[in-house]
C-alpha cells in the first residue's frame, strides 16, 4: 500500500517498482507474472483510490501516467493491461462495462460494492433515513450527502452497492411512474 493519506494536493506517490523497466513487460515465467500482476492490481487500486477515479477505457488508459512511465520510457501494452483487469474482475474489484464481450472498458472498484453498501447503510442508519425514498442522483449528488464518502460516486458503482443492500433486504430499488429513474428505499434490515 502506498501512503494515500497524504494531503490532497500532493501527487500520487508511485511505488519503487514503477521505475523498474521490466515491470512494464509481461513476464514469461508464470509465477513471476502472477506476482507482477498482483502488484499491478494493487497499484491500480491505490492509484484509483487516491485520485477517486472509477472508469477506465483500456486503449486510452495505457497513455495515462499510471501505465506510461515517461521517465523510463516504458508503458504497459493494452493486452497485458486487459489480463490485469481480468484478474481484478475475478477478485470483485472491477467489472467490464460497454458492449458485451468487448473488454475494452471497465469500472474499477477500489472499494468493493459490498463495502460501499455498508457505508451507505450506515449513513442511512445514522441519519434516520430508514423507510425514506431517495433518488440515485440525490444519494450521489444531493446536498445531504456532500460530507459523505459516497458523494460523487459513479452511478454504476452506486447501483452495484444498492443491489448488494437489496440482496441483504436492507433496501428496495423501484421505479416511479416514468419507469426510467430508479429510486431506493432503505430498511433497518430484512
Amino acid at each position: 500500500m502506498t501512503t494515500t493519506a497524504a494531503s490532497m494536493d500532493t501527487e500520487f506517490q508511485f511505488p519503487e517498482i514503477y521505475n523498474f523497466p521490466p515491470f512494464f513487460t509481461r513476464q514469461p515465467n508464470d509465477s513471476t507474472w502472477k506476482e507482477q500482476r498482483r502488484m499491478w492490481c494493487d497499484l491500480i487500486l491505490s492509484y484509483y483510490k487516491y485520485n477517486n477515479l472509477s472508469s477506465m477505457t483500456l486503449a486510452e488508459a495505457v497513455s495515462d501516467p499510471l501505465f506510461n512511465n515517461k521517465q523510463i520510457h516504458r508503458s504497459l501494452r493494452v493486452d497485458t493491461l486487459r489480463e490485469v483487469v481480468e484478474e481484478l474482475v475475478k477478485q470483485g474489484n472491477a467489472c467490464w462495462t460497454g458492449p458485451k464481450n468487448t473488454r475494452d472498458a471497465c469500472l474499477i472498484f477500489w472499494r468493493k460494492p459490498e463495502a460501499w453498501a455498508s457505508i451507505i447503510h450506515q449513513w442511512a442508519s445514522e441519519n434516520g433515513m430508514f423507510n425514506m425514498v431517495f433518488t440515485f442522483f440525490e444519494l450521489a449528488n444531493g446536498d445531504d450527502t456532500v460530507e459523505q464518502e459516497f458523494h460523487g460516486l459513479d452511478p454504476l458503482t452506486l447501483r452495484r452497492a444498492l443491489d448488494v443492500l437489496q440482496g441483504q433486504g436492507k433496501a428496495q430499488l423501484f421505479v416511479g411512474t416514468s419507469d426510467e429513474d430508479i429510486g431506493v428505499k432503505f430498511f433497518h434490515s430484512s
Partner: protein
Amino acid sequence: MGAGNSKAKITAQDKAILDMKIQRDKLRQFQKRVQVVLDREDALARELLHKGDKKRALLALRRRKYQEQTISKTEEQLLNLQQLVETIEFSLVQRDVLFGLEQGNKVLTQLNSEMRIEDVERLAEETAEGIAYQNEVSNILQANMSPEDEEAALAELEQLEKEESDRLRLNLPHAPRHSMPEQVVEGLGDTGDKTGPQRHTELQEESETDEQSQRLRNEPMLA
C-alpha cells in the same frame, strides 16, 4: 418469495415521493445547466465589451438577465417541490404515529375488558366464601367430637408438647449443675478441669435413665 415480500414494502406513496424527487433532481440539473449558460453569456459580454462591440455586449447581458430570471423561477419551484415532499414525508410519519396510538389504545381497551370490575368483585367474594367455608368446617368438626375424644386429643397434645420440650432441653447448653458457692471458692481453673469429663458422663447417663437425669437436674436447685 423474498423479492415478492420486499416488493410489498414499496407503497403508492413511495412511488409518488420518488416521482416528485426525480422532478426535483431534474429541476436542479436544469438549474445547473442554466447557470453554465449564464456564466458563458457573462464572459461573452465582457469579451465583446473589451473588443468595443457595445451593442452585442448589451444583447449578451440581456440574455444573461433572462437566464437569471429563469434560475430564480426554478429556485422557487424547487422550494415548493421540496416543501411538498417534506410535508408528505411528515404526514407519513404522523400516520404511523396515529397507527401506533390506535394499536396501543386497542391493547389497553382489551386488557381493561379482561379484568372487569364485576370479575374482580366476584373473585374477592369467592375468596371470602372459601375462608368462611373453612371456618365452618372446623367448627363442625369440633362440635361433633365426644368429651372423651376431646380429652384424648388434649392428652396427646400434652404428650407431644412434653416430648418437644425434652428434645429442646437436650439440645440446650447445660447450666452449671454444682452449687454456686463451691465454684466461686475453688476458682475457675479448678472447676473447668472437674466439670469437663463429668459433664460428658452426665450427658450419656441422662439419655439412659430418666430417673437419674431427674436427680441431676434437681441438684443445682437444692444447692
